């Protein structure tokens, strides 16, 4: 019999490969993972992943749970995987990593900036800071406006850029 010990790090590596079902970002960069616990279970390990829902009752949660169970469960040495959704601490857009923000921006989705500063990077870097302005993810202009406070999913709003005439999506601040 092979006695395999699985460590937290290899589980995190697997979680980093799981994308959000609706956005081009991994669930780790999205800030969903609160903790990973590994406990011995016979000659293998029982894994418990504590995760935070972005929006309460988001239909993507069940898909994410299944993805975690499938991929972590496929690791050698894992006997069982339990995913637990908790509301405390609350998820917030501030948990999205810098890499995650950049990945979303590259796909035309902007994230409210924690400090009220423009989080421009690369081609989208702008010098101006205007409170409340949402810079266009495509051209960086701040000549943007909210088109609809509701969007294609519960977490997103629709914005429009008057400079490059593109629509884009902006995450709601929760």
């Amino acid at each position, binding site marked *: 019999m092979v006695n395999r010990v699985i460590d937290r790090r290899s589980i995190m590596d697997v979680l980093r490969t799981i994308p959000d079902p609706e956005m081009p970002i991994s669930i780790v960069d999205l800030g969903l993972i609160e903790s990973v616990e590994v406990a011995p279970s016979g000659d293998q390990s029982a894994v418990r992943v504590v995760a935070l829902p972005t929006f*309460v009752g988001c239909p993507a949660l069940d898909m994410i749970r299944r993805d975690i169970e499938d991929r972590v469960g496929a690791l050698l040495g894992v006997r069982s995987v339990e995913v637990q959704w908790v509301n405390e601490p609350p998820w917030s857009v501030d948990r999205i990593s810098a890499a995650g923000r950049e990945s979303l921006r590259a796909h035309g989705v902007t994230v409210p900036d924690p400090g009220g500063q423009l989080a421009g990077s690369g081609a989208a870097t702008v010098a101006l800071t205007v409170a409340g302005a949402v810079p266009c993810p495509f051209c960086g202009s701040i000549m943007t406006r909210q088109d*609809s406070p509701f969007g294609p999913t519960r977490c997103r709003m629709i914005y429009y850029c008057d400079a490059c005439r593109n629509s884009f999506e902006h995450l709601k601040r929760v």
Partner: protein
Amino acid sequence: MPDLPEHLTKPFVNLLLAAADDKLFLGHRNSEWTGLGPILEEDIAFSALAQDEMAHASALYELAGTLDGRSADQLAFGRKGAEYRCAAIVEVPDEFDWATAMARRLFCNHFDVLRLERFSHSAYKPLSHLARRLAAEQQAHVQHVDDWMVRLGTGTPESHRRIQQAIAALARIAPQLFEPVESQDQLVAAGLYPGRDQEMYGQWCREIEHVLGRAHLSAHLDAFNPEDRGGRRGVHTVHLAAMLDEMCEVYRLEPDAAW
């Protein structure tokens, strides 16, 4: 799960059901606008609002189910009419009058945020944690309806007339939102539903008057008369049964089906 005194479990479940039922039926009424919104943005908005309300209802049913033993589906679709705890204002049809749909959201949204605020201070941690999440999502709803009140109230003579008429009609039943569930005073005393009903009512009136003042509109709101038995104690309008028949048609075919 934290301990809940035995004799308060049923009243507490009813308090959770009151909130969940309000959201379920408001969500259902709003979902009736999908594909029929007066403009594209509001079609999207009402579909999104309905999804939010249903999702929040589902989370509250799940929480109630941990105390009551029933599943969220059973609680949402499997109860008899008199077991529901929603207020009359979420039951009445809006007859596809968009002003009525918006006036309903005005009264319900402001009530909902104040109720979630009290929930978020509940001694029952699973509720306080959930309520903080729900309250954060609910802010966008209040912003949406408040903005529209100003747009409609200060828009054209017709938009002003129609929204004022809808507000006046719903203001007659809106205070029934404040009917207490059975033994609510004990839930308040135990810290499970902290705060005072009277203060919450005053705050609700002030918020609505403030919005309507900006919109050049007004509402006459009478305090809830505790003698009136209404939805919070299982006495409903005829509209609830009709809505349940429609909503539960599929569920009742095979209540134990796995989805």
